[in-house]
C-alpha cells in the first residue's frame, strides 16, 4: 500500500546523502574528456563501430591494411601497425576481439597527418586483431589472426 511511497522517499534520501558526501571526499577521477566509455566497453567490432557513431555495419576493405605477427610469443607486447590508403581517413581504431575489452586504441588523424599508426598492444589470448578506419562516414576494416603463445593477464 505505502510501499511505492516508501521506496520513492528512500531513494531521495540516498541521492541527498551521495550529494553531501561528494563535497567532502575526493571524487572518483573522471574519465578524460572525449574518452568514449561505450566504445571501450563494447565486445565486438560491430559494437565498437556503433559506439563510435557508425550508422551502418563496417565493411572489409583492401584499402585498409594491418600488420601484425602471425605468432606472438609474448602477449604483453605485440607490435601492430595499421594504415588506410584512402583520403579522408579521420580515425584508425585497433581492436583485439578476444581481449576483455575489444577496443585497444582509437587514433584521430588530423589533416596533414598520415593515416598510418603503429603501437604495441596487449593480447590476452589468440585472437583476431582488427584495424577499423573511419573514412568519411564509412567504417572500413582489415583483420589478422594472431596466435598468442603466452597470453597477457594485463590485457
Amino acid at each position, binding site marked *: 500500500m505505502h510501499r511505492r511511497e516508501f521506496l520513492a522517499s528512500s531513494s531521495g534520501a540516498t541521492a541527498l546523502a551521495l550529494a553531501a558526501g561528494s563535497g567532502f571526499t575526493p571524487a572518483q577521477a573522471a574519465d578524460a574528456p572525449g574518452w568514449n566509455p561505450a566504445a571501450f566497453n563494447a565486445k565486438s567490432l560491430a559494437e565498437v563501430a556503433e559506439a563510435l557513431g557508425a550508422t551502418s555495419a563496417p565493411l572489409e576493405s583492401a584499402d585498409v591494411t594491418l600488420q601484425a605477427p602471425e605468432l606472438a610469443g609474448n602477449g604483453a607486447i605485440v607490435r601492430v601497425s595499421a594504415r588506410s590508403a584512402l583520403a579522408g581517413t579521420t580515425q584508425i581504431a585497433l581492436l583485439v576481439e578476444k581481449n576483455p575489452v575489444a577496443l585497444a586504441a582509437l587514433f584521430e*588523424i588530423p589533416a596533414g597527418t598520415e593515416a598510418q599508426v603503429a603501437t604495441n598492444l596487449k593480447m590476452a589470448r589468440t585472437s583476431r586483431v582488427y584495424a577499423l578506419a573511419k573514412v568519411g562516414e564509412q567504417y572500413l576494416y582489415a583483420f589478422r589472426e594472431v596466435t598468442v603463445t603466452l597470453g597477457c593477464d594485463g590485457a
Partner: protein
Amino acid sequence: MRLLLSHAMENGRRKDEAGQIAPAWFIQHLRASWNGKLVLSAYWGTAVSKNPFVQFSFQGGQAGDKIAVSWVDNLGEQRTDEALIT
C-alpha cells in the same frame, strides 16, 4: 615521429607479485602537437602495452620545430613534454 611514454598501463584485473589486484591505471588520452598544431590525438583503453610506443608521420615538420606531447590518465594525472625535431 616515435613516442615512448613511461606509464604502467594497468587494467585493474591483474594481480601483482603479492597477489593483490593492481588498480586500473592507464593513459586515456594522448595528444601530440607540432608548433601548436594538433598532429595526433589518441584515446586508449587498457590494452595498450606498458610504457606505450606510438609511431606516426605528419607533413611539414622541420629540424628545430617544437613538438609537444601530453597525456592524461584515468586517475586525472597529466604530463606534458616538449622536444625539438632533430
